[in-house]
């Protein structure tokens, strides 16, 4: 039931060279583990370092200090089986929807036809059937996000990093996508790290919600969400358990957000 952690960050620190010539610490002394098959949501004030944390796990950025382990091995390059849905649009403007989704299988050695077949399934699943031949600039923002989602999921990752994947979707599509995500995830052993600004979303989806401190990010608190699965995202929102957890996490988060604002004004003074 509780396998070894697939993701482990030990005192990970990440510094960036600030353009002023100084050093900006985005993540500091972050220790956190995610077990196989777990669904962890991460919330925290804007700009605290959530995206940076994901980039550490994905191996795209090396930590400045500390270690990052995936499946027990230290991360030096991108570990296999990782899927990462970026916060910003990362679809290729020069490829059609279908070819965008087929990118992953193509990169991983599938033949063109096979990759397209697999892609077609996913394009339909995210509700873009009929738009296969469109180029990204012909789609609305929400549709592009769905392309990105399909692009990531078509690789069937074991570790899924998602950086505010649904923030640009409309309410209905969003809850459909949330349900779809849960369904897909339930059928797999994938560990999910899901960054979001939407506390409701975090609670509705996750087994555990991690609250991050204001910048530099580190884990402030971690809350287990004991809501039963399978969940229907729409229904669960109105339950008492949900509201209780919501309030608890909210209090923790509010503190950090306020702190972030205060510090900003302090620095200005």
């Amino acid at each position, binding site marked *: 039931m509780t396998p070894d952690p697939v993701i482990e960050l030990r005192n990970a620190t990440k510094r960036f060279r600030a353009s002023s010539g100084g050093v900006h610490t985005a993540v500091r002394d972050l220790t956190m583990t995610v077990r196989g098959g777990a669904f962890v949501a991460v919330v925290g004030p804007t700009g605290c370092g959530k995206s940076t944390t994901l980039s550490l796990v*994905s191996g795209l950025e090396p930590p400045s200090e500390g270690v990052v382990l995936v499946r027990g091995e230290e991360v030096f390059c991108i570990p296999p089986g990782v899927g*990462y849905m970026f916060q910003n649009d990362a679809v290729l*403007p*020069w490829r059609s929807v279908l070819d965008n989704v087929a990118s*992953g299988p193509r990169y991983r050695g599938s033949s063109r036809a096979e990759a397209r077949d697999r892609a077609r399934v996913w394009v339909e699943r995210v509700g873009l059937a009929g738009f296969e031949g469109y180029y990204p*600039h012909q789609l609305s923002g929400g549709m592009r996000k769905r392309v990105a989602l399909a692009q990531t999921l078509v690789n069937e990752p074991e570790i899924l990093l998602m950086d505010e994947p649904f923030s640009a979707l409309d309410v209905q599509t969003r809850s459909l996508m949330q349900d779809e995500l849960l369904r897909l995830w339930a059928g797999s052993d994938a560990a999910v790290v899901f960054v979001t600004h939407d506390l409701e979303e975090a609670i509705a989806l996750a087994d555990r919600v991690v609250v991050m401190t204001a910048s530099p990010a580190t884990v402030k608190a971690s809350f287990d969400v004991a809501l039963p699965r399978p969940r229907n995202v729409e229904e669960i929102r109105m339950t008492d358990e949900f509201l209780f957890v919501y309030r608890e996490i909210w209090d923790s988060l509010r503190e950090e957000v306020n702190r972030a604002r205060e510090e900003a004004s302090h620095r200005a003074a």
Partner: protein
Amino acid sequence: MPHDTTITTPRSGRTTVDSSVVAKATSAHRKRRATVWAIRLALVAGWLVSWELTATYWIDPFFYSKPSAVWQRLVEWFTVGTSQGSIWEQIEVTLQEAVLGFALGALAGVVLGILLGRSRLLAEICAPFIKAANAVPRIVLAALFVLWFGLGMTSKVATAFVLVFFAVFFNAFQGAREVDRNLVNNARVLGASRLRVLTSIVVPSATSWILASLHIAFGFALIGAVVGEFTGASKGLGLLINRSQNMYDAPGIYAGMIVITVIALLAEWLLSVLEKRLLRWRPQAGGTEVRV
């Protein structure tokens, strides 16, 4: 375009857009093209007339020639031929040199530009050398190339090559550097090897930069071939112009320049067709809305 009559609306059931809308849009488009061509022709005509007049009444046609004389020379070349043989032969020779130099230079420029654009260390090491090489006057190089590669086609191709290479290189380099990091990261996570990142992300991203440079590069290739022919040759348009210069044949100089220009424009047109194909994925620039 016959496609203009296809109507694509997601909600075809409710669509009431009749084909007249499309037809109107198409005719507006045609009208616009006609206007553009009319203005262009007017400009050319105005320029030719004023040149003819000033050369007849005011300036010395010995230096400046005049359109009628240039036209006569062109007619002569294309009917009687030049003293070096058929004009087509001259064109063929120059074109061959230019196309070869262009192809090799563009290829080398793109490959090196992208490699250096993606590798900071290589770029830092090579940068001063490439900039230094770029500062070497081509006309001096052309003379050296004759010594190094002989009087044959190679030296002209080499001259065209260096001109094209640098124009393309700098743009490919910049294009490769400007690639969206997000796209690269996404591809890497999706499983792309370094090579695949290069071919499937960096190259397409840099395409608009590279194409921008190719537009001027073919002109450069022609110039390179001509400069090479100036330095020593037995055939070619450059030689033809050079001879005209030496023989006080101002109409010949201008006629030669016109032939070269027309070739460059044809090449340019081919490149534009290529560009349209390669950049199909891009939103067209402003003015594409149907105004009805």
